[in-house]
């Protein structure tokens, strides 16, 4: 069976009802989509099938023969991050990072439609679970990405990006 993943055409040998998640992770060694629950409940496995976000753990291989699959690995161009990826990085929207691939793929599909408000972002991402961040920074990142408000795809870890913070907040009455 033929499957195109991140622009590379593959002959796939997994049985036809293998989930797309397991085809990607076990046969094609594309490991960014994660096995968080294998029942469509967490969103950690979301990839694009012909440009639309889908739970890879719910998609049987036979249903996507010949389709174009995109995962997080296919978003960046060399070291340049996509706008969504850069926004997630700049807004600290990932802590342990396990849910991040799924969130990024869902956000990519949303942001392709232009500026998105908070309610729209929450609705679009509502199937994704994050246990670390409390979601606020993820929503901020996606909003910023939808408005194109990221500083670009340069490496954010470069030393000249460090700058002293403002005066740290002092709690009144605390010892010196």
């Amino acid at each position, binding site marked *: 069976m033929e499957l195109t993943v991140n622009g590379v055409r593959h002959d796939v040998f997994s049985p036809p009802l293998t*989930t797309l998640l*397991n085809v990607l992770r*076990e046969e094609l060694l594309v490991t960014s989509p994660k096995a968080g629950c294998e029942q469509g*409940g967490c969103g950690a496995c979301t990839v694009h099938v012909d440009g639309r976000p889908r739970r890879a753990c719910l998609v049987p291989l036979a249903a996507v023969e010949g389709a174009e699959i995109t995962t997080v690995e296919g978003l960046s161009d060399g070291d340049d991050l996509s706008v969504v990826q850069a926004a997630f990085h700049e807004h600290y929207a990932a802590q342990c990072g396990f849910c991040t691939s799924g969130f990024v793929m869902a956000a990519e599909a949303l942001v392709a439609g232009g500026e998105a408000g908070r309610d729209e972002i929450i609705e679009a991402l509502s199937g994704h679970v994050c246990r670390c961040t409390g979601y606020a920074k993820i929503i901020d990142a996606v909003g910023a990405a939808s408005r194109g408000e990221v500083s670009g795809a340069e490496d954010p870890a470069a030393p000249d990006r460090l700058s002293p913070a403002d005066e740290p907040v002092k709690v009144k009455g605390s010892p010196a």
Partner: protein
Amino acid sequence: MGGSPFGAAEVVVAASPQEAIDAFGDGDGVTVLAGGTIVVPDVTYGRLDARKVVLIGRAGLSGVRSEGGRTVIGAGTTLAELEDAVEPLGTCARRVADPEIREQATLGGNLCAPPGAESPRGDLQAGLLVLDAQVRSAGAGGERTESVEDVLASPGGRLVLDVSVAEPEAAATATVRRPHAHAYTVMRVCAARVAGEVRVAVSGAGPRAVRLRAVEAAVAGGADAESAAGHALEDVTPQDDALASGWYRGKVLPVLVRDALTKIG
């Protein structure tokens, strides 16, 4: 190969409605896979031993069209495509899971959903019941069209091809609040007036959606919303599940019925 429990199953990817019908045959030992949101996890977790699987996602069974004053919806139509469908079906579709699931889950799968082990499934069934849905299906004995009530009463053994629904004069829903996308809807009452007649149905009170005929009879006999709602428990005995007790559902159902009836006036 890790994680592939489907090794032994025969798989047919139907490329047309006729191919789907032929592959389904009389349905014996056949699992129909449309969106996969229910079937695939069941096989992943070993709850379903699939012997022959017919995939209908590319079989030309999707789409919404008008025909003779009714709306005809292909069995493979996704819930996402039904979010703006005729009410109350649109509300039922919009409140299932999240956008990614809704782009995969189908009307046919929802109609044919086996009862959930711990939470209600088949949210669209109540909407179909109040819209006088007629279900066209293939299987043993050939093609036939029957009411959705008959399908729900003896489910299984048929390949649903499409469902047609009436255009209501008024429609309303009343739902136990669903706190977030990961929650299943505990219970919803749908009401619609079709050709002058008020129909009322509930999903989440039993293994499948049920028409509340005693309520309908009371309304037809001139009862107001409050008194008609008093008949809510004559056609269904709500059960316990992981989300809510039968006791709770029994307390809330008459309130939902009253609210839905009040809304359609």
